[in-house]
């Protein structure tokens, strides 16, 4: 322990806090791996800094991206953050697969404590810093365009949410370099994470990273919900919204109600750890069962926060690439709402084995199965959307098909886990791990990748490379099956989750297959990056400036790609579902508006990044007991908020003439472009204009 002035200045940081120093003092493989990871963080940061400085892009980034309140840019930044964090968490996953494959009756490559950190960061990152930013980014980008809005309801709040999340992610990255992360898993169950058993900085890193992210997410939920209720274009009734907007609405409502339980759970745990409260301690009246309830009161709705946006993406993708209206639109809407409501009634199935009586377990088991009904309805509806359509097997569509097949398998194992007596024998085993990866990889990640491939041309004006997309698809799907089907078997064979080593030789073949699958998934991720690189290099021939490369249906496809800052030169009047498709059929999709008006848009603001920095600093101070830093950052946060509330000059006006000039330039591009039949959509002939659209 450190004392005196050092403690006052730097809290409990000492030399041994640094991964590099630990590796220097004891250069074991385990510590070298940890130092390597830390080096990647440090070198990555230095490299990014150097490149930006060299290219003189700081001002550009700051003015055009970091301080921007444009929902499209914020969306893209969210997804970029998600990509970085996904990379780290996939590498960790591969490391864990390797460890388990190697550590059969042997020590393996990492030590048990390090393994504990790996599964904890993997889970926490995948949920809070990969999945959430990805889906929030996608909703941010797409939803306002789909409802015909110029921005979200509270653009500044949107930026604050983003930078809070970034702050949390920075904390996760810092934990690789300074200190050690929690070994308590992504759910951070006490009393294991209490001071009595883990007095280090690990659980504190987890608490504050998750808290920052959950605060940001709660604000995002409010923002999206209000946007959908208040900012729809005239005539865009709720039941004319694309399904993606419906799922976004349900997700926002879930965020509003499900994030507070997480905040309460982490806050009470923090009180236990910092101020010697007794909520979840073993002694003095604490009760960890309350934590389990609070956490899963968040945790289960969270599952649907993660999955519903992907359901929305699939609905858009399948309808577009089947060249057909979505089957059973109302059914799908009601199913979505049913899932959202039911998701609050099933949290107890995460701990059937805590000793409740049979009535309670049976009640929650049946409630859990009930969610299977609307989910099943959705799957059937998607298949019926393809029925009597003309299905094109583009990359987003491939991911959607793989999703349906894979998700159904995951649903099956989910129903099994919902049966308490079956849960008793597979709970906490790899069967459970296989199940939730089987839900979240197709039910979230495939959907996000499909959405990324689908809307990328809209955001950047050029299509992503089709061939590399297919390679990525092949790796992701085969990798998934190889990595996770063996885990079902291992779970049924009685292998618990989170094992740093194994003493049953019969597990080995399955662990080897799973390791191969892990590498394939990593290859799939690399293929996605290669695809991005290749596509940027060939952006000229794949460019789709007109903005409708897939002969698509909703509003966002009827504007330029990339869209102007204000989205719509003229806010459209909506008369039907699939308004853009209807307009194409009537030949009015590219009619110029009668007149152009001045458009008022929010000015950039430094508040978001400042709050992100202050939030991360405050959290870092709390983790390391650097009280002056925590206090100063806390005061700074509220100072910035109050100061901002005195700023009056927050809007800028884009004159009608400029809007008209920009819009007419695009219309001339439309006039010059040649409409192409759907068969040619993946060829350079595709300029983003569908055949017969500009009649």
């Amino acid at each position: 322990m450190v004392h005196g002035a050092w403690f006052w200045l730097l809290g409990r940081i000492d030399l041994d806090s640094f991964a590099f120093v630990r590796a220097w003092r004891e250069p074991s493989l385990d510590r070298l791996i940890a130092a390597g990871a830390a080096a990647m963080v440090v070198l990555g940061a230095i490299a990014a800094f150097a490149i930006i400085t060299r290219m003189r892009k700081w001002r550009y980034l700051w003015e055009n991206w970091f301080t921007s309140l444009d929902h499209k840019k914020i969306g893209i930044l969210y997804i970029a953050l998600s990509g970085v964090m996904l990379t780290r968490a996939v590498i960790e996953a591969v490391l864990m697969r390797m460890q388990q494959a190697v550590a059969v009756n042997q020590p393996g490559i990492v030590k048990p404590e390090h393994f504990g950190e790996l599964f904890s960061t993997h889970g926490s990152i995948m949920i809070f810093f990969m999945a959430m930013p990805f889906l929030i980014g996608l909703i941010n980008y797409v939803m306002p365009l789909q409802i015909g809005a110029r921005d979200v309801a509270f653009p500044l709040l949107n930026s604050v949410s983003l930078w809070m999340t970034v702050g949390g992610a920075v904390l996760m990255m810092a934990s690789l370099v300074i200190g050690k992360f929690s070994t308590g898993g992504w759910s951070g169950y006490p009393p294991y994470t209490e001071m009595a058993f883990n007095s280090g900085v690990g659980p504190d890193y987890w608490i504050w990273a998750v808290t920052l992210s959950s605060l940001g997410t709660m604000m995002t939920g409010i923002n999206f919900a209000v946007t959908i209720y208040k900012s729809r274009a005239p005539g865009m009734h709720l039941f004319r919204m694309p399904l993606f907007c419906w799922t976004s609405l349900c997700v926002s409502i879930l965020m509003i109600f499900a994030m507070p339980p997480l905040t309460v759970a982490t806050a009470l745990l923090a009180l236990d750890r910092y101020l010697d409260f007794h909520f979840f301690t073993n002694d003095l009246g604490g009760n960890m069962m309350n934590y389990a309830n609070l956490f899963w009161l968040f945790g289960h709705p969270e599952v649907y926060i993660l999955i519903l946006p992907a359901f929305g993406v699939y609905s858009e993708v399948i309808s577009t690439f089947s060249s057909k209206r979505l089957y059973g639109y109302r059914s799908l809407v009601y199913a979505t709402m049913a899932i959202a409501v039911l998701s609050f009634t099933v949290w107890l199935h995460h701990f059937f084995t805590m000793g409740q009586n049979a009535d309670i377990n049976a009640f929650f088991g049946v409630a859990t199965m009930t969610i299977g009904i609307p989910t099943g309805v959705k799957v059937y509806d998607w298949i019926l959307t393809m029925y009597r359509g003309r299905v094109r097997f583009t990359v987003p569509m491939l991911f959607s098909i793989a999703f349906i097949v894979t998700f159904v398998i995951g649903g099956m194992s989910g129903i099994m886990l919902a049966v308490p007596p079956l849960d008793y024998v597979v709970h906490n085993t790899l069967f459970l791990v296989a199940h939730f990866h089987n839900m979240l990889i197709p039910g979230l990640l495939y959907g996000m990748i499909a959405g990324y491939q689908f809307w990328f041309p809209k955001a950047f004006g050029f299509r992503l490379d089709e061939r590399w997309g297919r390679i990525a698809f092949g790796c992701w799907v085969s990798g998934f099956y190889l990595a996770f089907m063996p885990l079902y078997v291992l779970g049924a064979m009685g292998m618990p989750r989170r094992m740093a080593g194994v003493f049953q030789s019969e597990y080995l073949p399955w662990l080897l297959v799973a390791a191969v699958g892990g590498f394939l998934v990593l290859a799939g991720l690399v293929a996605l990056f290669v695809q991005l690189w290749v596509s940027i290099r060939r952006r000229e021939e794949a460019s789709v400036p007109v903005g409708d490369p897939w002969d698509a249906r909703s509003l966002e496809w009827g504007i330029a790609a990339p869209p102007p800052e204000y989205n719509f030169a003229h806010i459209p009047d909506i008369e039907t579902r699939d308004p853009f498709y209807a307009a194409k059929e009537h030949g009015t999709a590219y009619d110029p508006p009668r007149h152009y008006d001045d458009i008022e848009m929010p000015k950039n603001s430094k508040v978001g990044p400042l709050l992100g920095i202050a939030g991360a600093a405050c959290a870092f101070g709390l983790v390391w007991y650097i009280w002056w830093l925590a206090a100063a950052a806390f005061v700074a946060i509220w100072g910035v908020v109050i100061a901002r509330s005195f700023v009056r000059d927050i809007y800028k006006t884009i004159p009608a003439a400029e809007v008209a000039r920009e819009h007419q330039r695009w219309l001339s591009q439309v006039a010059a472009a040649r409409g192409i039949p759907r068969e040619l959509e993946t060829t350079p002939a595709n300029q983003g204009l569908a055949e017969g659209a500009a009649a």
Partner: protein
Amino acid sequence: MRAGLPAGCRSLLLLLLAAPLSACAHSPSFFQAAGPVAAEQRDLFWIVTALLMLVVLPVFIGLPYVLWRFRQGNRQSDYRPTWDFSWKLEWLVWGVPVVVVAILGVVLWTTTHRLDPYKRLPGKSEVRVQAVALDWKWLFIYPDQHIATVNRLVIPVGRPVHIDLTSDTVMQSLMIPQLGGQIYAMAGMRTQLNLKADRPGSYFGENTQYNGKGFHKQNFETLAVPSAAFDAWAAQTAQGDRPLDRATYARLSQESVIARPISFSAVPAGMFDRIMRKYMYPEHKPVSGPAGDEAMQ
């Protein structure tokens, strides 16, 4: 790509059926049930799987068919881009899952009550065991025999075994897959598990709830022996000269991995209750000092 799906299905079927079953045959799996609880759980697994096929098979058959028939290249297929609803199909789409879930719900309700881990199993001369979760080992107290073991649970074949669980550290979870399980063990609380072995043998037992760096080594052997042999073992163990006294327990409750199972010849009466109650109030006054201090009083 179109060939990818059937190939995926084939390998999946192979994975799902042949190989896993043979794998489970050589491992501590509930598919190799050695007692009535695990046997019922195994049967339930197959019943649920069969019922789910009603929902799942239409997808596995229908999806490839629809994809093939309505692919872009097939100009013969019926193309109706505005067809988006049918009441008949709607009944089917909602009806099939509702019916299946209703049936499953009945199965779930009855089996959850029948297989309630707290429910005593039928049979004579029940054996009582008190399991205490420690880092990273299990202490099994036999209150009627006044003996205890660490990391070895000896039980008589054919007699019901009633296990009370608590923890003297973080939460853990006890499972013996071939007999059934699992249930959490939590400090200051008592949970229960009822099991029975049908045939003699050595069954793998474990903690499934992560509790630190020794977690993966926290296994124990469950030895199911004939009833007479059990009584003989208990009597013989009681003859030993290794009592579980206060100092021994204090050492035992420290974080450690035990290489070999241990047997204790004598255990003070009410020890389990004291371990449990030291976290509970108002019977006791505040605990100070290391956990386990009061357990021996």
